[in-house]
């Protein structure tokens, strides 16, 4: 290691005990002989000490008072709404009501019959199970598998989700403006190992090889999706299986308080099993 100074991040890892024995010993040996790196190590220690010496801020009284006031207002609103079957109940119902799977197991009527899970990522036959959709206004939840790589880029997100939402209407002539029956391949698991940030609205065909990384059942989807609209009268319009920051993610698009906008939430792909999975509002985009 002579002549090669230790990277300062590695010194930090060394201090934290994050290096394996071999690397740890190598760094220790180098630092013992190298004044420059020993100096950096001291500098890092001083930095950690400076961080540790910061007093923990406590919430100022006026901030605490306003917080309490706002919460009191909102919790009253919630209680009132709940008693008249308003804002709160949809989540309860969605989570507790049994989900009814159609014979085709792909068109799913959630709870009160107001929300459909629809897959339309591959052409289906038309037939008795086909229902007309007029997304995005209808009480229809479209499920897509675009594999799109979502990021903080609001414009890009907006373009992508609106294109997905518009797809049924624009494709109506070709017959995909309907809710499709997936026939013999009910709820295919999503192959997220196929990687990255590919493709736009064109969905990969999910084959039976499928992935270990994400096997949500439709029941789990419903519970996950419901967390994005709980406590509000927003409606979920679209679920897209894609990526966020390179990680498999469920993207849920809902109506917004502003009728001209849509809310776009990111949910971890393991939403249904992750105890601390919270929908993250990544963007508000124009409809």
């Amino acid at each position, binding site marked *: 290691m002579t002549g090669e100074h230790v990277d300062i991040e590695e010194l930090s*890892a060394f201090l*934290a005990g994050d290096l394996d024995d071999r690397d740890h010993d190598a760094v220790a040996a180098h630092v013992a002989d190298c004044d420059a790196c020993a100096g950096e190590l001291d500098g890092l220690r001083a930095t950690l000490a400076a961080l540790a010496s910061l007093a923990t801020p406590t919430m100022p009284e006026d901030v605490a008072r306003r917080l309490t006031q706002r919460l009191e207002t909102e919790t009253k609103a919630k209680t009132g709404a709940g008693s008249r079957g308003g804002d709160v109940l949809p989540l309860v119902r969605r989570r507790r009501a049994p989900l009814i799977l159609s014979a085709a197991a792909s068109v799913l009527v959630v709870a009160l019959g107001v929300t459909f899970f629809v897959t339309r990522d591959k052409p289906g036959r038309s037939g008795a199970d086909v229902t007309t959709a007029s997304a995005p206004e209808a009480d229809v939840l479209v499920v897509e598998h675009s594999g799109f790589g979502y990021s903080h880029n609001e414009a890009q997100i907006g373009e992508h989700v609106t294109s997905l939402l518009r797809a049924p209407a624009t494709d109506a002539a070709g017959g995909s403006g309907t809710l499709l029956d997936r026939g013999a391949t009910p709820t295919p698991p999503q192959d997220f190992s196929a990687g990255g940030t590919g493709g736009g609205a064109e969905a990969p065909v999910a084959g039976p090889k499928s992935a270990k990384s994400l096997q949500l059942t439709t029941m789990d989807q419903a519970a996950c999706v419901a967390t994005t609209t709980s406590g509000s009268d927003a409606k979920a319009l679209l679920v897209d299986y894609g990526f966020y920051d390179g990680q498999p993610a469920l993207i849920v698009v809902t109506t917004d308080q502003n009728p001209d906008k849509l809310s776009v939430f990111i949910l971890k792909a393991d939403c249904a099993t992750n105890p601390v999975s919270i929908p993250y509002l990544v963007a508000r985009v124009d409809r």
Partner: protein
Amino acid sequence: VADEQTDEQLVARSADGDGEAFGVLVTRHRDRAWAVAIRTLGDPGDAEDAVQEAFLSAFRQARSFRGDAKFSTWLHRIVVNACLDRMRKSRARPAVPIDDAVSATLADPHDYYAAAETATDVAAALARLSDDQRLAIVLVDLQGLPVEEAALALGVPTGTVKSRCHRGRAQLALLLGHLRGTPAAGEPSNEGSTPTTGSGT
């Protein structure tokens, strides 16, 4: 009565719309939430907004709390998300005051080895980190969360938390002038530093 209940009991009552139970939770956890928000966001107005949004969100989502995580971890995650949301919204705003504060701190090379930084210096340096690094440092080094809990709160693997912490600490050391390498304020420290003794004079 509510005061003696555990967080988990209180959050269960909150899920049924019990505002009083939730109020107890808020009182217990508001300083923690505030500390994360003010250290992450820097601006008291932004921090207040984020904390309000976070607690409202927690109340609305109380039903989605599952008992297999600690309430504080779950709440941290909500606060982190509220902060991220706030940062995204205010990203367009130039961070001029912070820049000024940092250059003032770093302008004088004779201060490099000053024994104690003021809290303001450290806060200003923190503000220069990337959002990801700052959040990791805030949770692990300032809030004292174990890396595993910080990982849950951030929704990333533990290895990611560690590497963000190491990069963030390295960057802070540069910004605070704890390293003899010339601090290139604001430059990413990906290449670490090549110590060049005496360059500071």
